[in-house]
């Protein structure tokens, strides 16, 4: 039952974060790229003021898979690094925490460009 509730919240919170972005796309003139930037900054901000972490406790991947979760990784990484190394951590913590995702995007994106060619848009 616990597992069912965890997956239900992952679905609802993850879906809700996407729905908010969809409303922003439909109702305002914000381009998808701007929305991604807003989401990632919102993730950093909400984590910094300790609102996002309870959401992760509740929804798991529902809060970590959306791009706000990327912002959360940055914020948590920075905080941990500042605790360990002082001010230097403000510069080193964020990218260290997200290195896996960024490197994976570069590597798999590059491999995709080796294998596939762009298809004409229908």
């Amino acid at each position: 039952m616990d597992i069912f509730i965890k997956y239900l919240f992952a679905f609802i919170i993850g879906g809700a974060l996407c729905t908010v972005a969809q409303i922003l796309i439909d109702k305002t003139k914000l381009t998808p790229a701007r929305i991604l930037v807003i989401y990632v900054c919102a993730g950093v901000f909400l984590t910094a003021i300790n609102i996002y972490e309870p959401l992760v406790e509740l929804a798991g991947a529902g809060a970590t898979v959306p791009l706000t979760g990327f912002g959360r990784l940055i914020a948590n990484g920075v905080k941990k690094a500042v605790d360990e190394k002082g001010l230097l951590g403000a510069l080193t913590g964020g990218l260290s925490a997200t290195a896996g995702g960024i490197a994976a995007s570069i590597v798999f994106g590059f491999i995709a460009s080796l294998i596939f060619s762009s298809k004409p848009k229908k």
Partner: protein
Amino acid sequence: MLSIINLYLVKLFSKGCDILKKQEYIEYVEKRAKRSPILKNCFFAFTVGGTICIIGQLLIDLYTYLGINKEDSGTLTSITLIFTSCLLTGLGVFDNIARVAGAGTLVPITGFANAVSSQAIDTKSEGYVLGVGAKIFTIAGPVIVYAVLSGTLYGVIYYICTLIWG
């Protein structure tokens, strides 16, 4: 002879009807689409986005079950989702899903990976250094730039706070 002409006329007429029906149908669809595109878009964004998050949770639980610690299984989940998006982008499947799902595929990490890989594939013709190398982050780059900027700002503020309150 007359019956053949008759038949032809009937055929022509029914064809005309078909065209009319088609037009009516298109108008009807457009009317419906205009009335509730947001509701429809939100529905697909919600269900597809939610489903991707459920897949993410399944992956986290799978990696944790395999004995990987919490932090690493989160990273591995991101990497798995990124790999899948790059593959689906290359196969041309991602665009078809994204057209329906809108923000449902954009907001999860899949959107980030799609932005990188589609850019890599599209700029391949311009060469691997100035094409792929230079333009791979045309769309996804701003995300990293502003994430790092806001993260550093937070780090500085947090550092000052620890100095003041210990």
